[in-house]
């Protein structure tokens, strides 16, 4: 993998089973080509996700219910696997699960969890303060898109967004798993605009959505400083050997 990039992989906890997802998580933890892990907790109504991740989440949720595994237990087990590692860990889940976790843990305990931030796909920039006002102290990763308005770009330059560990650039109008051409000059221009807006923050601007493998990574390395892979990795979660090969191939 490209060394100068901030490189992340999304993992759907509980898919195809909790055990198997934890085994794959250990591979991610130990792989030198991965800088950060997006730890996905499944939600019943994942509006930002395409068919592959949605189906994985549905199946993960059904398994968890059958085993009586709560989101809190799933997360605790994953954080056990990651204990003592030096990779960044971001919890990726929908607003309703964040609400649920704040109730289940209590905000004090939740704020002490060893994670580096939350990625909440249904909490856009302008709702950044919602969970903060409800006791959340972890960073909430800000989003930017090719259509983010100048007004919202200004939010990116201000606290609390300013001190978030990175900015998540959603490269595509659509859901996860869609195809994307990173040679598109218009996209590169928009990315540059966002990079410019957060220049003072010294954060990577991570490209998400539409990245399947090495070809796209080479394209995006020409202008971007980070990426995250979702769908293509989730598809391999059931086969640890194939999963490792995939990481090696990037």
């Amino acid at each position, binding site marked *: 993998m490209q060394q100068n990039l901030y490189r992340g992989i999304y993992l759907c906890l509980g898919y195809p089973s909790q055990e198997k997802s934890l085994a794959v998580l250990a591979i991610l933890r130990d792989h030198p080509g991965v800088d950060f892990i997006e730890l996905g907790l499944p939600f019943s109504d994942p509006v930002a996700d395409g068919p592959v991740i949605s189906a994985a989440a549905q199946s993960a949720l059904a398994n968890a219910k059958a085993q009586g595994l709560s989101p809190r237990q799933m997360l605790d087990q994953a954080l056990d696997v990651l204990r003592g590692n030096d990779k960044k860990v971001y919890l990726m889940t929908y*607003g309703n699960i964040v609400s649920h976790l704040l109730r289940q843990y209590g905000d004090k305990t939740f704020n002490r969890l060893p994670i580096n931030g939350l990625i909440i796909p249904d909490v856009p920039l302008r709702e950044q303060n*919602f969970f903060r006002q409800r006791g959340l102290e972890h960073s909430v990763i800000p*989003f930017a898109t090719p*259509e983010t308005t100048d007004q*919202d770009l200004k939010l990116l330059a201000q606290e609390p967004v300013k001190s978030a560990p990175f900015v998540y650039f959603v490269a595509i109008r659509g859901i996860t798993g*869609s195809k994307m051409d990173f040679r598109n000059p218009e996209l590169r221009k928009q990315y540059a605009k966002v990079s410019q807006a957060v220049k003072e923050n010294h954060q990577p601007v991570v490209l998400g959505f539409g990245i399947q493998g090495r070809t796209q990574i080479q394209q995006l390395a020409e202008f971007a400083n980070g990426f995250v892979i979702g769908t293509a990795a989730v598809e391999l979660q059931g086969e640890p050997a194939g999963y490792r090969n995939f990481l090696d191939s990037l």
Partner: protein
Amino acid sequence: MTKESTAKESGPIRDYWGEFGGCFVPETLVPTLSQLKALFLQLYQDPKFTEELRYLEQNFSGRPTPLYEAKNLSRKLNCRLFLKREDLLHTGAHKINNTLGQGLLAKYMGKKRVIAETGAGQHGVATATTAALLGLQCVIFMGEEDTLRQAPNVQRMKLLGAEVVSVQSGSRTLKDAVNAALQDWVSRVEDTHYILGSVSGPSPFPSIVAYFHECIGRETAAQLRQQYEIEQPDAVIACVGGGSNAIGMFRSFIDMPADKVQIYGIEAGGISDAPGRHARTIGLGEKGVLHGYHSLLLQDDFGAVAPVHSISAGLDYPGIGPEHAALHASKRVHYDFARDHEALDALTLLAQTEGIIPALESSHALAFLLRESQRFQGGNVVLNLSGRGDKDLAHYFAAQQQRNGTQK
């Protein structure tokens, strides 16, 4: 008070009611929602827009609807009962108020295509009707389960020229249809407007939908005064699923003194309070986020949206509009419920005493009134008859037959 309640308000658009509401959507939808808000604020007072809407309301859908004093039932209940006849509107329910308004918005915004979610099919039919009228391409998302339960409405939508997409994900019901519509919208915002069907969803939808239904309460208040010389009714009752007909009715009465004008929102109590057997979002839900807004939500121990049940497909929804959650929190509106069997009995009674077959949704409001009639003795009671029951006949007879079978 939380900070959000002081968030900027503009015209009829509010982002939050206390802590409820907001705009919880993927970042890619935010510019579209901002654009919708800005265009709505430009248009809602535009004389050309309002005139065109008024003409269609009067001559296409049939406004104003009558406020009918149901004297036979009034005698039985020992009160004066007034029925707001939204059931007489074109397509059979209040839903067309919103689809005409939003359909015109879409046209004025230059969008060629409209999409909508539907559960029972009433909102889908109203949207398909509006799209046919205004020459817009129309796609309706409907859970596979609902397309089977509501086959006649699927046929109506197709006849009106709409494409009906059967949604196969999740529980294959209304909530999944909303997800599918949101996903479609994310990828096609440039030519598409999403005609969301209730006072739910991300801001500005709850405000826009409520705005187009405010005519219900406005007409009712005027009719009470002019036809019946009643300045303030003693009680106002409406059924609540997402809550659009109820908000349309309530808004004209919530500023009247709470000790004089009591307001009731009636949820679907289903079969029992067991999980998955009801749709009592206000009664049994917890705070949560679904479909773009923060409100009360029926959910399970896993933070997943809970399955819901009601004999009425239009009330079969795990969320509730944010304004209702706030009206519940402030105690201005009392939320109660009626069970499936009570709604069936109420439908029978209204049909046989007044010659009006109400929708199963509206029958819940009526069922509450029948059960609690002691509270309303001698009072002036307004009930929003939000839809007609023609669509429910097959379901009604099947349910009655099942009850008779069980009794034997």
